[in-house]
């Protein structure tokens, strides 16, 4: 910190005392100071509120159960590196993958620039790193500029794909209203941000020629060195200063808006893709998670293990999931990670043949339900306390929460019954979300806890239970073999 201050002073303020009589430089100093104060206040408020919102999401995710799963840490990091950071699974579809890559890499690269923007903003300096980094600075900023142009191209094509070409997966029924607006808003934000970057750099390039003392040489920037003079050449210095400040503030304000918009939007995937790929299930896709509690009970019934009497007498537990409280927190993390791209739904055989099921909707419903519960918990309204838990001084917590609703108010039975467990959705997801896992948990709740579910399945259950076969056929299981041997002889 002190090093930075010292360098800052060296850059601007050494001559300050000598020029103290100079009114102009006092005004300029005050202007910088006021900008610094405003910046610190705005940044503090933006980061603070964003942090507050992220803590709420963390709380909502942790409404889910802790489901202990075996995890190979090396493989988990590998998934983070290749699938989240490296976007490996995006490249199953080349065109969106490349356009998305432009925006993603530009986003990552802009983070480097943000370091300088913060230093400039807090200390009221201008392009702090330029004099120190020299050619490297020109290289870094040029790199960001080229990526920004590519990101601009990507953003425009994405807007066209969404709104003019009408890619079917963006226009399914669950995308009506907010999800569609959300998808467009972020692209619009992206364009504003890029306008900010190029106004700032473009005007700066021109100003460097007019006022080299205040605008340190950045070298020839890849885009702004020609775009700047082309757009802003010939404008008065005062106008240029205004454009440069406008661009700088637009850029950083869009970053703050984006940060605070994230928790309300599908774009949370840019952060949550990393933990989600880390915590993703590592088993073969076709393996359904075991239920040890039921296994042990059945083993007890079969006399394979000693029956635990105390467990027998305990209240019959609920099996499966009917709400976010009975899903795992990994399921809810996955729901918040979903960016509603719809690759899952576009490959779902049930959805393709116009059944009600859409794997994307399952994830969106889980997230929306978690949000609803989160908001109700925030309200502290005692109406949401489970009736038998109400009383003087009892406050609303997730343990006593009951609003009379469940996930089944969001997801219909018909949707979960339509699933063929084909794993196409699991395979398609670029960030390792499994919509199949919550579907199986919902089915388990329906069958095991409610004793409900499709009546067509009852003969199958009975047949397996009583005849050890999925079909109720009285023949011997090896009748085919005996017949084959007989016909051969």
């Amino acid at each position, binding site marked *: 910190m002190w090093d930075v201050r010292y360098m800052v002073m060296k850059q601007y303020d050494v001559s300050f005392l000598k020029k103290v009589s100079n009114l102009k430089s006092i005004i300029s100093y005050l202007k910088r100071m006021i900008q610094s104060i405003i910046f610190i206040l705005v940044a503090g408020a933006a980061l603070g509120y964003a942090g507050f919102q992220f803590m709420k999401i963390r709380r909502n995710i942790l409404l889910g159960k802790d489901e202990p799963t075996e995890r190979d840490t090396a493989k988990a990091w590998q998934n983070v590196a290749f699938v989240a950071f490296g976007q490996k699974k995006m490249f199953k579809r080349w065109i969106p993958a490349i356009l998305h890559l432009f925006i993603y890499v530009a986003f990552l690269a802009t983070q480097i620039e943000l370091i300088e923007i913060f230093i400039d903003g807090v200390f009221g300096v201008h392009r702090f790193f330029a004099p120190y980094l020299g050619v490297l600075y020109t290289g870094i900023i040029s790199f960001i500029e080229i990526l920004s142009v590519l990101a601009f191209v990507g953003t425009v094509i994405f807007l066209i794909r969404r709104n003019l070409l009408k890619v079917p997966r963006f226009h399914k029924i669950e995308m009506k209203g907010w999800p569609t607006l959300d998808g467009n808003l972020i692209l619009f934000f992206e364009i504003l941000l890029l306008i900010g970057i190029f106004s700032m750099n473009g005007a700066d390039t021109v100003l460097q020629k007019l006022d080299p003392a205040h605008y340190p040489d950045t070298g020839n920037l890849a885009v702004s060195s020609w775009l700047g003079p082309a757009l802003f050449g010939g404008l008065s210095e005062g106008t240029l200063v205004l454009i440069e400040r406008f661009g700088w503030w637009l850029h950083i304000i869009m970053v703050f808006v984006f940060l605070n918009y994230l928790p309300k939007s599908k774009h949370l995937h840019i952060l949550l893709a990393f933990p989600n790929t880390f915590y993703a299930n590592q088993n073969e896709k076709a393996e359904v998670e075991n239920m040890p509690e039921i296994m042990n009970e059945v083993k007890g019934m079969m006399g394979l293990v000693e029956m635990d009497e105390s467990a027998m007498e305990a209240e019959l537990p609920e099996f499966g999931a009917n709400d976010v409280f009975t899903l795992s927190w990994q399921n809810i993390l996955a729901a918040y990670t979903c960016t509603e791209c719809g690759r899952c739904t576009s490959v779902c055989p*049930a959805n393709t043949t116009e059944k009600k099921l859409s794997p994307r909707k399952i994830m969106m419903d889980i997230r929306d339900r978690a949000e609803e519960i989160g908001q109700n918990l925030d309200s502290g309204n005692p109406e949401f306390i489970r009736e038998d838990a109400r009383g003087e001084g009892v406050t609303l917590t997730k343990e006593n929460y009951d609003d009379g609703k469940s996930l089944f108010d969001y997801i219909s039975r018909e949707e979960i019954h339509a699933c063929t467990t084909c794993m196409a959705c699991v395979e398609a997801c670029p960030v390792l979300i499994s919509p199949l896992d919550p579907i199986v948990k919902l089915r388990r709740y329906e069958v095991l806890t409610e004793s409900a579910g*499709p009546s067509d399945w009852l003969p199958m259950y009975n047949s397996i239970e009583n005849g050890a076969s*999925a079909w109720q056929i009285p023949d011997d299981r090896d009748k085919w073999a005996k017949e084959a041997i007989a016909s051969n002889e």
Partner: protein
Amino acid sequence: MAEFAAEGRRPEILFWVGCAGSYDARAQKIMVAFAKILNEVGIEFAILGNEEGCTGDPARRAGNEFVFQMSALQNIEVLNGYEVQKIVAACPHCFNTLKNEYPALGGNYDVMHHTQLLQQLINEGRLKLQGGGAFEGKKITYHDSCYLGRGNDVYEAPRAVLEALDNELVEMKRSRTKGLCCGAGGAQMFKEEEDGSHRINVERVREVVDTGATILAANCPFCTIMMNDGLKAEEKEEEIMIYDLAELIVNNNQW
């Protein structure tokens, strides 16, 4: 298996037939074909007969974990009783459950899908395919079952077998990781499809028709049944024949 045990012998492999293979008339033919191949190659194998039970796959996926556990634990008792080590299943659902889900319940076996064994036998030279067979040069398309393909990442073994049969493999629009389900999985086999525009097997059969192939190769008795129904619904059952890989080999070698 009981006969082997009575003689104090142990077969090279246990052939897991499954419910479809045991009871469905179409699927039984696949089992006969696979058994014929094992006999011709000279692999000593056994089946469990009435001691075999449903692996529990449809019950588990329907959500009925109790029924799954009962059936699975019963099977594990039998398998462990015979000290079974190597199992070959001619159904990808059985294969997956035995291989991936039984270990958590105390059943650990070396499990193969029959197409994997067929590829291995061809590679080792134990299974020789006669040249100039019925399928040489014919257009064949291959349907990836979900539980062998996506579920267990086995895409190449069945294709290698087809290649050995020396025919022209034409891939469908959706194949390998993108392969479209036949509509039977997740216990759908045992209930009516939910309301929609058309049945999933019909959607898949239309893709088969688009390839121009006259033969559809499959690796799963449930897919075979579903696709057969789909071909009938689309009135293509005269033009396109569906066979399991084991049947293709038996036909090719005229066993």
